[in-house]
C-alpha cells in the first residue's frame, strides 16, 4: 500500500436510492497521469469528491498519500490540487485575490508560473473572476492549481469550455508538470482524444463501476478490431481473449477484443483469411466499452457470435 499515492477500497457512495459509485478498488502509483473516463453521470465526479474527502463514502474508504480522505493530515491536504466541476471562486474576487489565497495555502506557490499563464491569455490580475469567459475561468483555475505545486492533482473536466488549442496547452502544461515534479494526476473527462496523448493509464467508469483500469500502452498493444463478413460462422474464441464489444452492420461484423500477443497470434491462425485483425484507436475502444450497457452488450454479442 505504501507505494501507492492514491488507493481506494470498496469505495461506494449512494445518493438516496441511487448508487453513484459502486465498490471501486483502485491503486495508483506515483508519477502517473490517469485518465478517468466515462459518460456523463457515470460517477467520475463522485469518485473525485470522495477522494478529496468532500463527501462521506457509504461504504469503503480511500487514501491519498496514506492519509484517509475523510480525515486528511494537514501536510497532505495542502499537497492536493483540486479542480472540481461545481466549485468556483466568488465572482467579485480578482485574479490577484485568488493568487494570494492559493499562495497562502501552498507553501512554495510559483508566482512566476502563474503570472506567465495569466499573461498567456492576455489577462490582467486586476480582472474580477466573474468578468472572465468560461474558458478563461478554467484556465485561471488550472493555473492556480498547478502553481500551487501539488503532489497530487484531482481534476474534473479541466479543459471543458476551452478552445482546442488552449485545451492542448493545458494538457501539455499538465504533462510537463507531472514529469518535472513526479506528481500524480487523475483527470476526469469524457473526451478521450484530448487526454490520450498525455495520460499513462485509463480508468473507465460506467454506471458507478470501474470497468477497466489499464495502462494505455497495454491497451494499444492488446486491443484489436476484428472485421469479418456477416456470413462467416465464428469459431469459439479461446477463453483468454476478452471480448469487449461488437457491432454488426451492412454485411460486416466488427468485434473488439483484448488479448496478449501470443493469443493474438493464435487468433490470427484460427481466423485465417476469414477476417482481418487490426489496431484500434483508444476512442473506438472506449466507445466499445461504454456504448452499450453490459446486459445489452452480452445479448448483442451472442447475436453476433451465433
Amino acid at each position, binding site marked *: 500500500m505504501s507505494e501507492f499515492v492514491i488507493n481506494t477500497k470498496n469505495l461506494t457512495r449512494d445518493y438516496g436510492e441511487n448508487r453513484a459509485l459502486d465498490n471501486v478498488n483502485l491503486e495508483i502509483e506515483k508519477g502517473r497521469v490517469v485518465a478517468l473516463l466515462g459518460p456523463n453521470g457515470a460517477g467520475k465526479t463522485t469518485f473525485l469528491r470522495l477522494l*478529496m474527502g*468532500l*463527501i*462521506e463514502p457509504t461504504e469503503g474508504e480511500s487514501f491519498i498519500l496514506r492519509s484517509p480522505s*475523510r*480525515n*486528511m493530515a*494537514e501536510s497532505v*491536504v*495542502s*499537497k*492536493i*490540487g*483540486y*479542480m*472540481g466541476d*461545481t*466549485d*468556483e*471562486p*466568488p465572482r*467579485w*474576487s480578482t485574479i490577484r*485575490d485568488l493568487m*494570494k*489565497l*492559493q*499562495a*497562502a*495555502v*501552498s507553501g512554495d506557490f510559483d508566482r512566476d508560473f502563474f503570472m506567465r499563464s495569466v499573461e498567456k491569455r492576455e489577462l490582467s490580475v486586476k480582472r474580477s473572476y466573474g468578468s472572465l469567459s468560461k474558458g478563461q475561468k478554467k484556465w485561471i483555475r488550472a493555473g492556480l492549481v498547478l502553481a*500551487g505545486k*501539488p503532489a497530487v492533482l484531482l481534476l474534473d473536466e479541466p479543459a471543458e469550455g476551452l478552445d482546442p488549442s488552449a485545451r492542448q496547452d493545458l494538457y501539455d502544461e499538465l504533462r510537463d508538470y507531472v514529469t518535472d515534479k513526479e506528481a500524480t494526476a487523475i483527470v476526469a473527462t469524457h473526451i478521450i482524444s484530448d487526454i490520450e496523448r498525455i495520460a499513462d493509464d485509463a480508468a473507465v467508469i460506467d454506471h458507478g463501476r470501474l470497468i477497466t483500469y489499464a495502462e494505455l500502452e497495454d491497451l494499444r498493444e492488446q486491443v484489436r478490431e476484428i472485421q469479418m463478413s456477416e456470413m462467416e460462422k465464428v469459431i469459439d474464441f479461446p477463453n483468454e481473449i476478452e471480448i469487449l464489444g461488437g457491432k454488426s452492420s451492412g454485411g460486416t461484423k466488427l468485434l473488439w477484443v483484448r488479448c496478449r500477443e501470443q493469443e493474438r497470434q493464435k487468433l490470427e491462425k484460427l481466423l485465417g483469411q476469414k477476417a482481418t485483425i487490426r489496431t484500434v484507436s483508444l476512442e473506438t475502444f472506449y466507445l466499445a466499452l461504454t456504448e452499450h450497457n453490459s446486459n445489452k452488450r452480452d445479448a448483442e454479442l451472442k447475436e453476433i457470435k451465433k
Partner: protein
Amino acid sequence: MKIRISLLKILFRQTLPATLIALPVGCFYVLLTKQVLSWRNPWMALFVLVHSIAIAVMSGRYRSKTFAFLYTRGFTRDELWCNKMLNTTFSVLTVWLPVALIIWLPIRSAVQDKLFVSPYFPIMMMREASVPWVWLGGYAILLPLFHYVWIRRAQPLRGGSGVILLAISVVIVIGILMLFRRHPLWFRFLIYVLSTVMIAASLIAGRILHRNLEVQ
C-alpha cells in the same frame, strides 16, 4: 492553525452585506432614540438576533460554489473553521464598536442634547454605559449557536448533540426572562455559567461537525 489574511478577506466579503446594512441601522437607532436605552430594549434585541442570523446564513452557504472552492484549496477543515469564527468576530465588531463608541464617547448624549433637547441627556451616559456589553453578550451566545445550527442543516445525517444544546439554550432563555424580575445574585451567576457552557459547547460541537461537513 494559522490566521490567513487572504482567506479572511474573502470570508469578510461574504458577510459584508449584513455588515453594511447593520452598521448604519445600529448607529442611527442609537443616535436618534429618545428614551434611555436599557438592555431590555426589544428593538436592539431584535437587531442583535437578526444580525446574528444574517452572519450565520451568509457565512454558511455550504452548498454554494464559492464554498466548494474555498474548501478545496488545501486548507484544513479546522483552519477554515477558525478563520470563519475570526471573521464572525470581526464582522460583529465592525458594527458593535461604532455603536458602542457613539454611546460611550458620548456622541449620543451630545446629539440628544443639542438636536432633540432630550431631558434625559445628563443621565444617559451613566445609565447606558453597560448596555453595549449586554448586546455583545447576545452576539456571543447567539452566533456560535446559529453557526452550529447552520452546519447541522447542511449535514442532516450527523450528530446528536443538537438536542443537548437546544435544552441548554431553552434554560438560558427562560433564565434571562426570569431575570426581568429581580432575582438573587446566585441565580444571575448560574445564568452566566450556563451561558459560558453553552457558548463553549456550540463552538466545540460546531467545530467537530464542521470536520465532517459534506461539501457539494
